[in-house]
C-alpha cells in the first residue's frame, strides 16, 4: 500500500496541521510516512498545500506529481490540483465554500460541508479535521481511533484544542 495524498486550501485553514496529523497517525499505525508542505508566494492569505505519503514500504521522494487522494478546503486549490488526481482517485471537497459541478470525472468526489460541521462543533477552524474524519471513513487507510490518539501529538502544547478537534474528527467521520 502506498497512498499519495494532497491537502490544500488557504493559509489559515489548517492544511499543514491536517497533514501532520495524518503523519502522526500513520506512524502510530507503523506505516512509513512523509509530509511535504508548500506555501504560495502570497503571505497568509495565499494558498497552501501539503503532500502526504502513507506507505507500507520505505518512501523515496516525498514529492509526487499524481495523487491518489485530494482533500481540498477551498475552490482555487481544487481547481489547481484536481487535474493531478489519478484515475480512480478520491477527492474530498469542502462543500461549505464551493461545490464543483458534477461533470464527468475520472475520480470519485466526496462533498463535506466542513465549515458548517466545524462551526457546529464550536469553531470553523476545525474544518480541516472534519475533512480528515471524512477521509478516514471513506478511505479506511487509517483507523479513526489511531487518528484520534494522534491529536495530542499533532497539537503538542495546545491542550485546549484537543477536545474540539477530537469532536470535529468524529463529526467528520460520521458525516
Amino acid at each position: 500500500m502506498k497512498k499519495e495524498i494532497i491537502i490544500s486550501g488557504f493559509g489559515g485553514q489548517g492544511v499543514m496541521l491536517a497533514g501532520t496529523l495524518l503523519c502522526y497517525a500513520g506512524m502510530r499505525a507503523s506505516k512509513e510516512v512523509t509530509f511535504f508542505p508548500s506555501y504560495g508566494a502570497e503571505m497568509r492569505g495565499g494558498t497552501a498545500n501539503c503532500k502526504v505519503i502513507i506507505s507500507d514500504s520505505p518512501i523515496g521522494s516525498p514529492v509526487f506529481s499524481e495523487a491518489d487522494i485530494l482533500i481540498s478546503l477551498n475552490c482555487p486549490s481544487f481547481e489547481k490540483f484536481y487535474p493531478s488526481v489519478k484515475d480512480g482517485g478520491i477527492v474530498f471537497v469542502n462543500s461549505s465554500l464551493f461545490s464543483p459541478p458534477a461533470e464527468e470525472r475520472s475520480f470519485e468526489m466526496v462533498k463535506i460541508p466542513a465549515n458548517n460541521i466545524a462551526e457546529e462543533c464550536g469553531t470553523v477552524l476545525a474544518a480541516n479535521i472534519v475533512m480528515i474524519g471524512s477521509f478516514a471513513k471513506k478511505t479506511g487507510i487509517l483507523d479513526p481511533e489511531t487518528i484520534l490518539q494522534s491529536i495530542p501529538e499533532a497539537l503538542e502544547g495546545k491542550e485546549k484544542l484537543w477536545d474540539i478537534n477530537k469532536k470535529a474528527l468524529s463529526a467528520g467521520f460520521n458525516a
Partner: protein
Amino acid sequence: MKIRHHYCTGCGHGIIHRLLCEVIDELEIREKIIAIAPVGCAVFGYFYWNFDTAEAAHGRPPAVAAAIKRILPDRIVMTYQGDGDLAAIGGNEMLHAANRGDNITVVFVNNACYGMTGGQMAPTTVMNQITTTTPYGRNIEDGYPIKVCELLKELEGTVYIERTSVDSPANIIKSKKALKKALNCQIEGKGFSLVEILSMCPVGWRLNPQQSLEWVNKSMKKQFPLGVFKDRL
C-alpha cells in the same frame, strides 16, 4: 489602480502602494520613474505598479538606485524598502547613499519585523516585542530598535526626512503629503529624501487588524515618534 493584491488582511503595504501611485500620478512622473522593489513582502510591488521597476538583491536598493540616478539624472529613482531590507542587511548601502546625498527617494516601510519570512525580529522590533526569533520578547541582548530617521538626519547628505504612519486617516493623509514632498525634493534636484512609514503587519505581529492599529499607535509611535526630522527644502 484596481487590482487584487496578495498582502494579508489589514497589511499596511496596500495603503502605501495606493498613496504612492496617487502621488506619482499627481506629480505626473509615472513615465520617468524607475522604482526598485525590495526583497520583502513588497517584492511583488511590480505587480501593482504601472511603471518601470526592478527587483534588487536584499538590502541593496540604495546602491542600485544611486547608480541609476547618476546615469540617468533626469529620471526619478525611488526605492521601496522594508525595515529588514533597509536597516538590517542593507544598513551600509543606505548609510552611504544617504551620506553621498544621492538624489533618490527612499520609501521605508517600518513594520517592526521581517514580514515576508514569517515575522522574525527586525532592527526596528521594539523592546519586549515577541517575534519568531525573540520568543521571550526582544531584550537588550538583541540590541535596541534602530531609529533610522534620527540616524540619517545626522548625515550631511540628507535633505528631507520624515516619519509618518498609516494607522489613521489623518496619518495616511500626512503620509501622502510626505511622499509627495520627498519625490518633489528629488524632482527639484535637492538631494536625498526618505519617508519612514510605520505600517501594520497583523500577521507578523500575531494580532488582528484592529489590534494592529492600536499597536502602531501605542507601541510603535512611542519608540518611533512621528514628525519631520530634517527639511532642507
